[in-house]
């Protein structure tokens, strides 16, 4: 036990030490921005109280009641997508699904800050970001139904298909951003990854390259406290955001369950990148309320009290409270949000069930863009093999 404790760190053991995400009075002092300060930026506390922030208020000054309602609707819809996909997996229609439950604010807040010509390189859990990019709902499921290795053409929504190798996409984003620099463009590459990924060499190399070339890339780390069964304390002995300044990259820690704060810090980072200010590292402190994937059982490794604690910081509930306090949560509105979510869920389910089956010979497609003598021969032989079943007589010896 002693050894476990030492290995997992004293500060972030199992994610039970919640960074001060608001107090009983909701008072949070505005921390100094961009220096990797431990205190997360928070504009909306877990009780739904909006707090003034001397630096970040200006970045969300345009977010009026209608915009708040839209953010809330987004979060309800993506939570509904998540629930529907989880149900589809339980019903045997999907092989697997990686839920984002609990991370809606981090993904919607950052995703809604992006411009259409920005380009996203994400992991497999950023389905809410894909939703912000305008993904076709059926495309979200192709990989998880086993029908394709990716759901969409990355150029159709300016978002790479989800990366499974942990952290590899951070380098792709950095290289893409280097290309933006070459082009003299003001787009930004945005990369999403988790706390576990920060242990990967690729993520650290990406920060070296991004800093050296001053590439317009935003590193958006969702510290959801768990990498499958490993607590964040095993990956990082100090708050993750503290690392980036060592690379020469400004960083900010944000309450990842506060959609307004996530929107604000991401807007700031994007603006910095667009104006030649180089990369920014954002650590959104959030929590993976569900399993790693539908194949995981978090009851084996984490405490129910922890879940309960984080449930009280739910990103949707606090925004609903704020809307209510502003008189914006009337029945007409909530009914329409529910109707939208139900329609999206129905479309998702329909898309899943009506997805055409892949054809056997599709396995050979797109390995190369040009003919390949080795593969063409194997394909030819397999075609003949399959055809032999159709041509074979009903009886007779092989």
């Amino acid at each position, binding site marked *: 036990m002693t050894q476990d404790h030492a290995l997992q760190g004293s500060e972030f053991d199992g994610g039970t030490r919640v960074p001060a995400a608001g107090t009983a009075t909701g008072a949070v002092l505005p921390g100094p921005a961009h220096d990797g300060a431990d205190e997360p930026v928070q504009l909306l506390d877990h009780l739904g109280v909006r707090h003034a922030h001397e630096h970040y208020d200006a970045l969300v000054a345009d977010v009026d009641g209608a915009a708040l309602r839209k953010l809330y609707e987004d979060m309800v819809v993506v939570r509904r997508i998540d629930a529907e996909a989880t149900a589809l997996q339980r019903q045997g229609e999907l092989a697997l699904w990686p839920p984002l439950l609990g991370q809606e604010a981090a993904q919607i807040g950052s995703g809604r800050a992006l411009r259409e010509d920005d380009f996203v390189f994400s992991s497999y859990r950023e389905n809410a970001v894909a939703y912000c990019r305008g993904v076709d709902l059926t495309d979200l499921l192709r990989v998880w139904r086993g029908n394709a*290795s990716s759901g969409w053409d990355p150029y159709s929504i300016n978002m790479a298909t989800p990366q499974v190798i942990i952290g590899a996409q951070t380098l792709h984003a*950095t290289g893409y*951003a*280097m290309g933006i620099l*070459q082009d003299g463009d003001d787009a930004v590459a945005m990369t999403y990854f988790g706390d576990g990924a920060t242990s990967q060499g690729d993520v650290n190399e990406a920060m070296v390259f991004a800093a050296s070339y001053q590439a317009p890339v935003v590193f958006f780390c969702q510290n959801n406290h768990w990498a499958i069964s490993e607590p964040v304390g095993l990956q990082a002995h100090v708050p993750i955001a503290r690392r980036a300044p060592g690379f020469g990259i400004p960083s900010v820690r944000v309450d990842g369950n506060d959609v307004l704060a996530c929107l604000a810090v991401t807007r700031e980072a994007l603006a910095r990148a667009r104006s030649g200010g180089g990369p920014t590292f954002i650590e959104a402190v959030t929590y993976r309320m569900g399993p790693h994937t539908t194949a995981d059982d978090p009851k084996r490794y984490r405490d129910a009290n922890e879940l309960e604690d984080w449930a009280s910081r739910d990103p949707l509930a606090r925004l609903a409270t704020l809307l209510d306090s502003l008189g914006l949560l009337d029945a007409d509105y909530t009914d329409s949000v529910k109707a939208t979510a139900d329609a999206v869920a129905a479309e998702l389910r329909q898309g899943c069930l009506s997805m055409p089956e892949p054809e056997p010979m599709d396995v050979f497609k797109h*390995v*190369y*863009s040009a003919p390949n003598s080795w593969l063409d021969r194997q394909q030819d032989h397999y075609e003949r093999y399959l055809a032999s079943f159709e041509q074979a007589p009903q009886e007779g010896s092989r």
Partner: protein
Amino acid sequence: MTTMTFGRAITAGLRRAMEDDPKVILMGEDIGKLGGVFRITDGLQKDFGAHRVLDSPLAESGILGTAVGMAYRGYRPVVEIQFDGFIYPAFDQIVCQVAKLHYRTQGAVRMPITIRVPFGGGIGSPEHHSESPEAYFTHTSGLRVVSVSDPQDAYTMIQQAIASDDPVLYFEPKRRYHVKGEVDETGDASASDMGTARVVARGTDVTLVTYGPLVPTARDAAVAASDEGISIEVIDLRSLAPIDFATVEASVRKTGRLVITHEAAQSGGLGAEIAASITERCFDVLEHAPVRVTGFDIPYPYSKLEFHHLPDLDRILDGVDRVMRRHNSLSGPTTEGVSQ
């Protein structure tokens, strides 16, 4: 025609590719002001600018990973891996990303990345500077792998590799960088195909297949064997993935005997693939089992022993003797009925 060294021919080919296509970007360690440790990129940063010839931080995975991002953005990165033995930190990005993104995205994203790798031994270097890792990559679908053996091919094939919409590993036999040859710079690189093998010496008794650094050695072996009345046909594979088996098969159908030689270790190497594939195709005409003359299954040895590891003229001729059922190192005192 211009006489130039093998290394200069690659430089000239890179220069031509950069002139032809502004999307061609060079990335690697020490390739800027220094011109690379082998000077292959000498003068290119000065002429094309630091934005097109990028000195990279010392992180091979980072170089390949950012090259992937550049390719996403529409560029054609040409990456220099400084030495063969330094490629392994980039292995994940090459195998999981560079090789598979076209397949993963159902053709939506192309990875026209060229990875230049100085490879092979014979230069007296310490560990990690003399390896032949090509089989790791020929085993990986989605990659094309080539190796060049003379200045003309070096010049032409680097341009073809860069022009390829599929990723290409371009293995350069570093011990031949200073070999001189005639190069025609006026030709159109797209007129020929880097995927085809080439018969570099005609013969009728034995087909000797090789690539890269051992092509000159194999040609020497053919000359030496002819003194003893043995006619060797030498094939320079040029493309290692895919291998142009049609050319090898046509030769073996004529000779009935196959010897393969490479510097890389034997087990699971390209020689095994060639022996198996040619046996499948030509079993009926083979006079003897294919013979491999290769490096041993050892870590690359310290330099004073490297020429025991590397196949040379005499070891190749010994392999030829085996496939000819002549007296050889394994046959003992008699020559009758000896197979190995």
